[in-house]
């Protein structure tokens, strides 16, 4: 029974991983690609590791899987945020059909104040 639940979690993780990497190919812009591909960190690999923990149980591998889940969930948003901010700072343009750019407006207001 608990093996079946673990396999269901692994299947969900595979679904998110595959479609996240498909978004990494097909989206037109760096920011869109980042938005699609960071979904396959927390949901994809996180649920694969949780399914591994459910199948293996409280052994050495299960405890390592739990620690890896905690580490990944803490560090992946930090790296994604640093990447998007450095992309905006180094002047990579948005897609031409993008609607709004709040960080650019904020920088322009600060420049006008000075």
């Amino acid at each position, binding site marked *: 029974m608990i*093996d079946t639940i673990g*396999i269901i979690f*692994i*299947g969900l*993780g*595979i679904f998110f*991983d*595959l479609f*996240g*990497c*498909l978004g*990494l*190919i097909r989206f037109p812009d*760096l920011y869109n*690609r*980042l938005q699609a*591909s960071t979904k*396959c*960190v927390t949901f*994809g*690999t996180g649920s*694969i*590791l949780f399914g*591994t923990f459910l*199948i*293996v149980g409280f*052994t*050495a*591998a299960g405890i*390592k*899987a739990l*620690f*890896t889940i905690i*580490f*990944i969930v803490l*560090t*992946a948003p*930090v*790296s994604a945020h*640093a*990447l998007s*901010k*450095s*992309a905006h*700072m*180094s*002047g*990579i343009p948005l897609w031409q059909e993008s609607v709004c750019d709040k960080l650019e407006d904020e920088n322009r207001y600060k420049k006008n104040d000075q």
Partner: protein
Amino acid sequence: MKKRLRWILGSVVLIIILYLILFYPFQILIYEKLLFIPVLKRVIFILLLSAAFCLFRIMKGPTALDRIVAIDILGILIVGLCSVLTITTGRSWYLDIGIAWALQSFIGTIALSKYMEGRDFDD
């Protein structure tokens, strides 16, 4: 003409990978008797397909930051692959590789993004 050739090449590669997913002609290390071994074999091939997508983005990406994003996601996929190999082989040291890979990937991504950001602060 060139675009049609690229479509044909890509569809041939996708058909080969789907054949590998459905029929798995290779042997994979398996030591434990588990109920879901055929499902887990296909899971390994689907993870390798996603890694091939990431490699395509690394090869093609127009800027350097695209390649950094793809390398980050490739590291995360390899952590998942180590986790699946832990189930099928029953050895717990595959997850040690996964933990080390996640740590190195995080440090490398932070360092590269700070480097790319700091180069334009001087201008």
